[in-house]
């Protein structure tokens, strides 16, 4: 592509959501009748953007290439002679493309209206109540709404940190400081801060509690975790330290 052309097309390709978006832009720019798209010309224009996309190593480049191929296929089919007798039944090779463009445009319009609504509604702030207000709702519960996505993500996290045992049915009762250090780090991978009080019910015995506490002290010493308390006797908060490693 010549430098002149490059300047002509120095439009940030990232601003197009995809090939359909770019096509709509080209159609609008040249005031093209969407039912009679000059395929040869638009293919040429489109390809210049695709070249640019490749140069810019855009992640969407593949989708643009695919559309370019479709355009070229249509171009070829438009060149093929149509047999007189079939004339009425033959579909314009551009029909599918036109329908796709119109369908996409409908939703693009809606997304613009949604954006307006988002702006308007964003002026109001919803009342965000305390976790449970001053009402005594079972304290350990009520964190966040749980949806399928949360189940999926949580399970995946757990599996990443877990090695399937080679042989089954071996359960060591022993818990070491090292084990509990891993346990604490796992917790911190899942949420930014962990309340110490929330850990207690998870621990099997007083011995494990003591070992866990030693693990915390060890991690604090190594700067792997930090502990915060807003005031005396307040909740102990555990969070990642500067040298946190997992």
């Amino acid at each position, binding site marked *: 592509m010549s430098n002149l052309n490059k300047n002509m097309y120095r439009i940030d390709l990232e601003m197009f*959501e995809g090939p359909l978006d770019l096509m709509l832009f080209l159609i609008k720019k040249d005031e093209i009748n969407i039912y009679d798209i000059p395929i040869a010309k638009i293919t040429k224009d489109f390809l210049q953007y695709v070249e640019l996309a490749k140069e810019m190593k855009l992640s969407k480049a593949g989708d643009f290439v695919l559309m370019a191929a479709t355009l070229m296929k249509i171009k070829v089919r438009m060149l093929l002679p149509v047999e007189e007798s079939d004339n009425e039944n033959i579909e314009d090779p551009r029909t599918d493309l036109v329908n796709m463009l119109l369908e996409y445009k409908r939703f693009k319009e809606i997304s613009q209206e949604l954006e307006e609504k988002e*702006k308007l509604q964003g002026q109001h702030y*919803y009342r965000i109540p305390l976790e449970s207000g001053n009402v005594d709702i079972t304290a350990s519960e009520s964190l966040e709404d749980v949806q399928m996505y949360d189940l999926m993500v949580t399970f995946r996290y757990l599996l990443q940190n877990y090695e399937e045992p080679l042989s089954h049915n071996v359960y060591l009762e022993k818990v070491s400081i090292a084990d509990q250090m891993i346990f604490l780090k796992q917790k911190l991978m899942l949420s930014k801060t962990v309340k110490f009080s929330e850990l207690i019910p998870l621990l099997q015995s007083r011995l494990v509690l003591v070992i866990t506490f030693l693990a915390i002290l060890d991690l604090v010493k190594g700067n792997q975790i930090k502990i915060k308390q807003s005031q005396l006797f307040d909740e102990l908060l555990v969070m990642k330290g500067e040298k946190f490693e997992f």
Partner: protein
Amino acid sequence: MNFDELKQVVEALLIATPEPLSESRFLQCIDTEIDVSLENIIEALSQDYQKSGRAFEIIQVAGGYQLVTKEDYQIYIKRMFAKSSRLRLSQAALETLSIIAYRQPVTRNDIDAIRGVNSDSPLRTLLERKLIQIRGRDEGQGRALLYRTTVEFLQYFGLNTIKEMPKLREIEELIDNDELSFV
């Protein structure tokens, strides 16, 4: 319970609820027969707030009522949330959301086909923000996961029901009067 007491109960519920208060949930909470509707009580409360110059108001959203701050104070509240300010949705996320809102339940393939690009990343954003949810599987072959909008979606855009979505224009309308000027 007299009307004033009912008003106070509704107010307390509005202050305490993170989700819209619907008539049915309200009736479950008071657990007794009353001869006024929630709508009447909300109206009376709204008037109280207006008269006494409160900084908040009640809006009707997602099939219920919710307490929100008036828009006059957004500048101060924004400063309070300065660091964790709400991120607006990207164009890709808005497009994906529009398609889900109209075509739900819908598969990822259908969304990709309409947008002409892969929609994994906007889908993930929308799932994380709980504006959409995964709901069962498609009947067809492939049995793909199905996506739907959530109650949070309605709340986020201030819609009372999904029917309040802007109208999807007919294809003919798109052609007839359009800024695209298809000459």
